[in-house]
């Protein structure tokens, strides 16, 4: 039964990927992609990557879908102009050949993976007690490979700076996105009043259990960002002007705390991002607590886009 289920899932995701590529209208392709993201969550559950499934559920189900649907709606009617640049049949056949060759090479690679498979699980299990956390993935993210996580937070910040740099000159320092009409009795406003309190509790819960069970700051931050975006969509709150000092402090606070704890590690533990004995867990908690609000605001603002109006209309 489980094999049948896996085969069905595999067939579905490959089929939906094909639909995403060949669909005639961009909007139909985007909806196909959202369904594809949902099914990937199931695949991660089947591969016993519950932490990954949580990330995919939060990012694939919430943020990416909203981002792409918004873009597809704005770009409606642009297919014709783009279709003029469609490559001819020989080029398409060549592309199909190249893609098939890549797939074939990868498939051979998958089938000839070494057995027994190399694994770092033993190394993680041997050292996890020194970090004090119970979830091996959190231990990897914030202790063994903390540099990756630090750089990731900085990549997110840079992506936001990249988005902001697209602001038209006369709107610099203004509010991101377009103003939403507030319909305080509307259904969307109703949902935006009811869902965020539950979502904030769930987001903090997912963040908090991350120390010992699947979960963590990225998943929690994504849920918090989605709730913030929902209130913005409903017109209940407005995006802050990007010139505000408090906003910028908020954005860089998480990465800065992370970097300073890293430098403290140089003095106390002899390595950048090293934790002194016995203090690993409290330091990890401090880093996570500092990163959570910064990540949530960065993710929310990434989706809001560059400023498109003045701070005070």
């Amino acid at each position, binding site marked *: 039964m489980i094999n*049948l289920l896996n085969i069905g899932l595999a067939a579905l995701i490959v089929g939906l990927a094909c639909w995403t590529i060949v669909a005639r209208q961009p*909007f*139909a392709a985007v909806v196909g992609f959202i369904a594809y993201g949902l099914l990937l969550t199931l695949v991660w*559950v089947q591969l016993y990557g519950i932490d990954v499934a949580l990330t995919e559920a939060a990012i694939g189900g919430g943020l990416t879908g909203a981002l792409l649907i918004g873009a597809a*709606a*704005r770009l409606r009617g642009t297919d014709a102009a783009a279709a003029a640049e469609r490559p001819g049949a020989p080029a398409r056949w060549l592309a199909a050949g190249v893609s098939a060759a890549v797939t074939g090479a990868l498939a051979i690679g998958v089938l000839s993976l070494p057995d027994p498979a190399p694994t770092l699980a033993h190394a993680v299990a041997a050292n996890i007690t020194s970090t004090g956390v119970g979830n091996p993935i959190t231990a990897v993210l914030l202790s063994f490979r903390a540099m990756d996580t630090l750089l990731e937070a900085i990549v997110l910040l840079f992506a936001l700076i990249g988005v902001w740099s697209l602001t038209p000159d006369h709107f610099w320092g203004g509010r991101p996105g377009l103003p939403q009409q507030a319909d305080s009795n509307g259904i*969307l406003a109703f949902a935006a009043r009811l869902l965020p309190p539950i979502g904030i509790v769930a987001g903090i819960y997912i963040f908090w259990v991350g120390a010992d069970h699947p979960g963590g700051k990225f998943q929690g931050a994504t849920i918090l960002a989605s709730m913030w975006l929902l209130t913005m969509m409903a017109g209940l709150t407005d995006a802050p002007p990007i010139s505000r000092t408090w906003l910028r402090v908020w954005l860089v606070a998480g990465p800065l705390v992370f970097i300073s704890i890293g430098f403290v590690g140089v003095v106390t533990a002899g390595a950048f991002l090293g934790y002194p004995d016995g203090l690993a867990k409290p330091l990890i908690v401090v880093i996570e607590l500092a990163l959570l609000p910064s990540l949530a605001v960065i993710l929310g603002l990434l989706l809001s886009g560059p400023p498109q109006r003045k701070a005070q209309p």
Partner: protein
Amino acid sequence: MPEFLLGAALFILVMVAVGLVRILRGPADADRMMAAQLLGTGGIAAVLLLGAATGVDATIDVALTLALLAAFASFAFVRAGSAPTVNKTAAEDGA
């Protein structure tokens, strides 16, 4: 019991997958969104059934996340659908 739960997960998955034909056929974008919404609900049910069948408790948190964000794409769709009028007022404000 696990076999039955897995079978139910497979059945629900096949059902909502058949529903995906609506994404192919349309005709309106709203119909396509509905197919995605149905897949979201079916996906939550399948995650719960898989978690119960395999005994991995944390899958409930995955389902909780999916449930929280289930309607997010539909909200964005409705918002994006009413964007053109908003766009015009914004352009006038900016000028």
